[in-house]
C-alpha cells in the first residue's frame, strides 16, 4: 500500500513522542500478558479439577487432621465409589545452587487408589509396578523432576519441619522410581508422591494413623452436593467433624486469597489501560491538531476526506498494534521461561485465547484513540486549515 509509507513517516515526526507512546502501550500490554498468565495460573487449577471428585477435610480447617479409618466409613456412603487419603508432608530440599531450602509439594499416598482417583497423572505401567514394589519409592511430577534434576534411580532426601521419624530424625530417604506427566496442559506436575505405608511405619509422634484429607470419587457428578451433605452428616457430632465439597470449590477456596489478588491486579490493569487510552488518545489528538495545515494541504491536493480519515486511523492503529503486539510477544516469551515460583504457581503458560484477546484490545485501542482525531481530520475544512492563524 503506497499510503503506508506516508503513515510511517508521520510517526517519525516527533520521534521521542512516538517512542514514549509506543513504550507506554508496550508496558500496558506486557502487563496484560503477565496478568493473563497469572490468572490462568491461579484459576487454571479449578477448571482442571474433576467434577466427579470431592474433597473431605476437617470442618475447622485444612491443616487439622482426620483419622485414616474414616476412609472406610466414607466408602460405605451411598454414591461414593473410591476414597483416597493424602497428607501434607512439607518436604524440603536444597535449590540447585545449594543456597536455600525450598518446599516441594509432597504427599504420602496409597499409590493404587490415589492414581485411580487422579487419572490426569500419567505414570507408565512399569514405573507404577516399581513404585508398588519399592517401599521407599516415590514418583515425582515432570516439572519437579526437571527443576531438581531428579532422575529415576536417584536416591534423595527430603527434610520435613512437621514430620519426624520415630528415631527423631527429620530427614527422610526416598528412591525415585517414576516420573509422571500430565494428561492436560494445566495439570500440576510439581508434586512429589510417596508411599503412605512407609510414612506410617516411620513416623513418630501423636498423629499416627491420622491423615490430612480425603479425595473422594463419586458415581454421579450431578449428585456431588447431595453426597457431600451425606458425608458431612455421617460425621456430625463426632470428635472430628468434616466438611465435604466438590474439588473445584475446595481449590477455589484455597485460592480465594490469590483470586482477590487477581482482581486487584485486574483493577490495576484496567486503570493502566484507561491511562494508556488517555495518553495515546491525547497524543494522537495533539499529533493531528499540530498537523491541521498539512492535512489541509493533502485535501487541497485532492486527497478525499475518507482517505485522510483512514490515514489518521491507520496511524493510531499502527502505533497501538506495534506497541501492543511487542508487549504481548514479550509476555509470551516470559511465559516460556516457566514459572518463577513453581511451588506456588505450577501452571504457567499463556492461553492462545488470551493472545487473541490482547491483539483485539490493541486494535480496539488504535481505533478508539484514532476515532476522534480521524473524524476531526475528516471534517477539517481546507480553507480554515490553511489560514495562517490555524
Amino acid at each position, binding site marked *: 500500500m*503506497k*499510503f503506508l509509507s*506516508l503513515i510511517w*513517516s*508521520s510517526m*517519525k*515526526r516527533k520521534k521521542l513522542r512516538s517512542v514514549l507512546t509506543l513504550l507506554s502501550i508496550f508496558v500496558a500490554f506486557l502487563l496484560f500478558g503477565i496478568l493473563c498468565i497469572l490468572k490462568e495460573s491461579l484459576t487454571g487449577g479449578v477448571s482442571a479439577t474433576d467434577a466427579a471428585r470431592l474433597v473431605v477435610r476437617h470442618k475447622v480447617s485444612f491443616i487439622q487432621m482426620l483419622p485414616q479409618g474414616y476412609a472406610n466409613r466414607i466408602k460405605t456412603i451411598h454414591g461414593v465409589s473410591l476414597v483416597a487419603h493424602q497428607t501434607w508432608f512439607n518436604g524440603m530440599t536444597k535449590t540447585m545452587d545449594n543456597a536455600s531450602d525450598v518446599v516441594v509439594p509432597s504427599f504420602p499416598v496409597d499409590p493404587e487408589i490415589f492414581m485411580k482417583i487422579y487419572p490426569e497423572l500419567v505414570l507408565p505401567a512399569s514405573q507404577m509396578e516399581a513404585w508398588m514394589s519399592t517401599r521407599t519409592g516415590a514418583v515425582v511430577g515432570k516439572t519437579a523432576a526437571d527443576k531438581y534434576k531428579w532422575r529415576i534411580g536417584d536416591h534423595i532426601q527430603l527434610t520435613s519441619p512437621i514430620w519426624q521419624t520415630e528415631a527423631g530424625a527429620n530427614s527422610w530417604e526416598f528412591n525415585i522410581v517414576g516420573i509422571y506427566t500430565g494428561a492436560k496442559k494445566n495439570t500440576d506436575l510439581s508434586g512429589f508422591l510417596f508411599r503412605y505405608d512407609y510414612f506410617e511405619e516411620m513416623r513418630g509422634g501423636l498423629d499416627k494413623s491420622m491423615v490430612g484429607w480425603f479425595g473422594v470419587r463419586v458415581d454421579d457428578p450431578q449428585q456431588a452436593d447431595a453426597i457431600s451433605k451425606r458425608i458431612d452428616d455421617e460425621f456430625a457430632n463426632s470428635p472430628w467433624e468434616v466438611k465435604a465439597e466438590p474439588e473445584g470449590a475446595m481449590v477455589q477456596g484455597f485460592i480465594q486469597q490469590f483470586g482477590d489478588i487477581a482482581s486487584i491486579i485486574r483493577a490495576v490493569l484496567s486503570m493502566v489501560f484507561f491511562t494508556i487510552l488517555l495518553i495515546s488518545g491525547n497524543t494522537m489528538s495533539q499529533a493531528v491538531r499540530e498537523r491541521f*495545515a*498539512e492535512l489541509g*494541504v*493533502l*485535501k*487541497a*491536493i*485532492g*486527497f*478525499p*476526506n*475518507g482517505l485522510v480519515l483512514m490515514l489518521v486511523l491507520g496511524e493510531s492503529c499502527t502505533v497501538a498494534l506495534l506497541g501492543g503486539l511487542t508487549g504481548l510477544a514479550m509476555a509470551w516469551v516470559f511465559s516460556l521461561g516457566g514459572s518463577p515460583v513453581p511451588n506456588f504457581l505450577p501452571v504457567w503458560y499463556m492461553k492462545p485465547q488470551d493472545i487473541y484477546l490482547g491483539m483485539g484490545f490493541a486494535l480496539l485501542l488504535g481505533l478508539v484513540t484514532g476515532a476522534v482525531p480521524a473524524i476531526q481530520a475528516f471534517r477539517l*475544512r*481546507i*480553507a480554515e486549515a*490553511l*489560514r*495562517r492563524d490555524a
Partner: protein
Amino acid sequence: MSAESSDLVRIEHVTKTFHRGSEEIHVLSGLDLTVARGEFLALMGPSGSGKSTLLNLIGGLDRATSGSVIIENDRLDELDDRQLAAWRARHVGFVFQFYNLMPVLTAQKNVELPLLLTHLNRRERREHAEIALNAVGLSHRLNHFPRTLSGGEQQRVGIARAIVTDPTLLLCDEPTGDLDRKSGDEVLSLLQSLQENGKTIIMVTHDPHASARASRTVHLDKGQLSTTGPE
C-alpha cells in the same frame, strides 16, 4: 461559444459570507471575473479584502455562498465533496505562501504526494517527480528534507508539487510573500516560464514588483474587483 471556450475561469455573481458567532462578514459581494486560458493574473488588494477567499473558491477549496464558479466546463457548486476532491486532483495546482511542505518527506516524496492519487506505479511516480523537480531547477536536491532547503528552494519544491500532475490551472497565494527579493524573482521567473508553456496562473500578491510580471492585474476591495489600483 468561441469567447467562452477561451475562458478557463468564469465567476458569476459570486458572494461569500462568513459567520463569526452572530456576526456576518460579507467578504465577496456579487463578484464577476473571467480568466482566459494561458493568462497570468495578479490579484491584489488590501489585507483582509478577500483575496485568499476568492482564490479558494476558484480552486474548489471552499464553496461560494451564492453565484457560480465555472472552470472549463465544470460548475464547482454542482460537485459534491468527493467529486470536488477528485476535480482538484486533476485540474489545479496550489502554491502557498509558507510552502506547506511535509517536513518528514524528502523533496522528491513531497512532489510525489499528488501522484499517490493517480494510477502511476512507484517507478513512474519517481520519474514524474524528478522531471518536475528538474523543471524548477532542483534536480540536485531530490533527497533533501525541507528544513535543509532555503526558503526559495522550498517554494520551488512547492511549485514542482503543484505542476507534477500537469494541471490546467495554477493558483498561488502570495508565493513570494515570505521570500527575499532574489529568491522571489527566481520564483516569479519560474511562474512566467510556466505561463509561456501554456499554464493559466492566478497569483495573489501584495507586491507590485510581482504583479508586474503578470499579464494582467485586478484589484479586490470591499468585495468588488476593479482593474485599476486604489491609488
